[in-house]
C-alpha cells in the first residue's frame, strides 16, 4: 500500500478527488438551482418578452398570493415534519384564504368598512380556523392531514354560505392601490409578499421560536427533551399559518378585484407544489421559507414562460409537471448522493 494516504488518516484508502469530480459534485449539489436557471435562460431565449421588466413583475405579482399561503404551509410543515402520514400539513389554508376574500369583499363593498376593519374580521375568521386546526391536532389528537382536510371541507362550505356563492366586486381604494400601484419599481402586492417573506423568514430562521420550530419538526423527541414545548409549537404553527392565509386573502381580493367563488382548489395544488418543491432548492433538502418563495416563483415563471413561448394550452400543465419532476429528481439524486 502506498504511503500517500497516511496524511489523511480519516479517509479511506482510495479517497482522492479530482477537480472534475469536485465540479461534478458541485453541479449535483446545486442541480435544482442550476436547472431552474437553465429553464429561465431557455425561456428567455425562446421569448424575448420573458425577461422584460413588465413581464417579470407581473409574474411576481401572480406569485404573491401563492407564495404567502406557501409561507404559511411551510411553517406548518417545518414544525410538524414532512412525513406524509404523521407530519405537519395544513390543507385548509386555501379555504381560509378564500373565506378571507369573501369577508374582505363583503365588508368593503356591502358594509362600507375600511380595509383595516375588514382585514381584522378576515383575520379573525382565519384565526378561528387556525385555532380549530391547532386544537384538533394537539388536543384531540387527529393527524394533521385529516384534521385540516375536514376543516378544509367545512370552511369551503361556510364560505359558500357566507358568499351565497356570489361574486362580490371590490372598488375600495386601498385594494386598488395594492392591485395597481408600484412602489420603488415593484408592485405593491410584491412588496407585501416580500414583507411577509421577511417576517416569516426572520421568524423561522432567526428567532428562538424558529429554531424551536425547526427542532420540533426535525425530531420531536429530541426537541421535547431539549425542553421545548413542542405541543405549543405545533399548535402555534396552525395559528401563524392562518395569519398568512388572511394576508393571502387580501392579495387575492386585489388580484380578482373582489371575491369569486371556487378559487380554493387551484390554490391548494399550487400551494403544495410551491412549498414542497421548495425543499429541492435548499442544501439541507428540507421545506423552508426561502424555498417556498423560490418554488412559487419557479412555478409562476414556468407558467408564464410557457404561455409566452406559445406552448399549446393543453400542453402547459404537462410541461410544468415534467420540468418540476426534473428539478425534484435532481434534488432526490443529490440527496442520495450525500448518503
Amino acid at each position, binding site marked *: 500500500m502506498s504511503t500517500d494516504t497516511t496524511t489523511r488518516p480519516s479517509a479511506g484508502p482510495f479517497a482522492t478527488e479530482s477537480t472534475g469530480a469536485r465540479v461534478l459534485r458541485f453541479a449535483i449539489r446545486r442541480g435544482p438551482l442550476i436547472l431552474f436557471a437553465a429553464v429561465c435562460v431557455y425561456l428567455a431565449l425562446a421569448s424575448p418578452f420573458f425577461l422584460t421588466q413588465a413581464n417579470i413583475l407581473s409574474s411576481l405579482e401572480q406569485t404573491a398570493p401563492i407564495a404567502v399561503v406557501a409561507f404559511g404551509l411551510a411553517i406548518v410543515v417545518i414544525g410538524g415534519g414532512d412525513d406524509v402520514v404523521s407530519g405537519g400539513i395544513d390543507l385548509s389554508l386555501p379555504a381560509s384564504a378564500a373565506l378571507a376574500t369573501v369577508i374582505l369583499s363583503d365588508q368593503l363593498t356591502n358594509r362600507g368598512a375600511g380595509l383595516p376593519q375588514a382585514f381584522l374580521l378576515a383575520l379573525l375568521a382565519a384565526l378561528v380556523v387556525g385555532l380549530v386546526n391547532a386544537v384538533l391536532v394537539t388536543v*384531540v389528537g387527529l393527524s394533521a392531514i385529516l384534521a385540516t382536510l375536514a376543516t378544509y371541507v367545512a370552511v369551503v362550505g361556510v364560505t359558500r354560505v357566507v358568499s351565497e356563492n356570489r361574486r362580490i366586486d371590490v372598488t375600495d381604494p386601498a385594494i386598488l392601490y395594492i392591485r395597481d400601484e408600484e412602489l420603488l419599481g415593484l408592485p405593491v402586492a410584491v412588496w407585501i409578499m416580500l414583507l411577509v417573506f421577511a417576517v416569516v423568514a426572520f421568524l423561522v430562521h432567526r428567532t428562538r421560536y424558529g429554531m424551536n420550530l425547526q427542532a420540533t419538526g426535525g425530531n420531536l423527541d429530541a426537541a421535547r427533551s431539549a425542553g421545548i414545548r413542542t405541543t405549543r409549537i405545533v399548535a402555534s404553527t396552525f395559528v401563524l399559518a392562518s395569519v398568512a392565509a388572511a394576508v393571502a386573502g387580501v392579495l387575492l381580493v386585489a388580484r380578482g378585484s373582489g371575491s369569486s367563488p371556487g378559487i380554493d382548489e387551484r390554490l391548494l395544488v399550487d400551494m403544495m407544489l410551491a412549498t414542497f418543491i421548495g425543499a429541492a432548492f435548499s442544501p439541507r433538502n428540507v421545506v423552508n421559507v426561502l424555498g417556498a418563495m423560490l418554488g412559487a416563483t419557479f412555478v409562476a415563471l414556468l407558467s408564464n414562460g410557457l404561455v409566452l413561448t406559445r406552448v399549446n394550452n393543453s400542453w402547459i400543465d404537462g410541461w410544468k409537471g415534467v420540468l418540476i419532476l426534473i428539478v425534484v429528481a435532481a434534488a432526490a439524486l443529490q440527496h442520495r448522493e450525500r448518503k
Partner: protein
Amino acid sequence: MTTTDTRPGLVGALRSSGSWIARYAFLAAFAALFVFFSVQATSFLSGSNLLNALQGSMILLLIALALTLVISSGGIDLSAGTALDFGAWFAIAAMATYGLPWPLAVLCALAGGALVGSVNAFLIVTLGVTPFLATLGTFFIGRSLQQIGTGGGANINYRDAPEGFRALTSGSTLFIPNEVLLVGIVLVVFYLYLQRSKHGVRIEAMGLQDSAARTAGLRTRRYRAGIYIAAGVTCAVAGILLSSGLRIYTPMAGFSYLLDGIAAVFIGASMHPRARPNVLGTLAGVLFLSMLNNGLDLLGLDFNAKAALRGLVLLVALTLAFLIAKQARRTTAVRAAAIG
C-alpha cells in the same frame, strides 16, 4: 418466571380494549347520524335509497382502498384521480374510437391505470422522488395528457356501449348489484392481502421503518413499485365503473374523489389501535362519508348550507370520536409503557 403461554398479554388486552372504545366512539357517531337522517328524511331508510347510497359509494371505496395500500406503505398518491381518469378514458376510447370489444376495453383501462402507477413507481423507487411530489407531478402530466388527447378536454360519448359493459354497473348477480359484487371482491382481496397475509405486515413495516424492513430481508423496492402500480390499477377499476355507469368519459373527473378518499383512509386509521390505515376502517370511512352526502341530499337543504354542514358534521363527528378514543388510549398507553 416466563408465563408466556398462560398470560395472553396484559398489554395487548388493554390496548385492544382501548381500540374498541375508539372504534365504538366513531361507530356511535355513525349510528347517531344514521338515526338522525332516518328521522329527518323519510326516504332515507328506504331500501332503494340505501342501495343507491351504497352503489354510489363504490367508486370512492375503490379510490380509498388504493390509497389505503399506498398510505400503509408510508406514501401518498395524489394521482389516484388521474389513474381513475385514465381507466375511464382508455375504456371508452377503446370501444368508441377503436371499436374494440368491451372485455379488451376493460383490459386497456387496467393498463391505463397501471401506466400511471408505473410512472409513479419509476419516480419514487428508481429516482427517489418523494411520493408527494412524484404523484403531484404525475397528476399534472396526466391532466395535460387528457387535455391533449381530447382536443382540450372534450367528453367522449358512448351511449351505445355494449350491454356487457353497461351491465358492470346496471345489472345484478344473485340479487346483488354487479358493481357492489365487483367492488366487494376487490375489498375482500384487499382485506386478505393487507390485513390477513404476510404482505400486509411487510407493507406496514415498510411504512413504519423502511430501513428495518429492508434489513429484515424484505424486498421493499419491489413492494413499493408494486404498490403504486396496484393502486393505479385499482383506481382504473373505479374509472371503468364510472364510465360504465355514465357511458361517457369526462376528462379530469377523478380529482374530485381524491380528498374524500384521503379522508376515508385517515378516518379508518383513526379507528385503528396504532392509528394505521386499514381496510375495514377505510370501508367505515367511505360509508360514513357516503351516508353523510346522501342524508344531506335528502334533507332538502339549500346547497350552500349543505356544503357547510357536510364539513361541520365531519369535524364534530371526528372530534367527539377522537376525544373519547384518546381518553381510552391514554390509560392503556400509560399502563403499556409501565410494563415495558
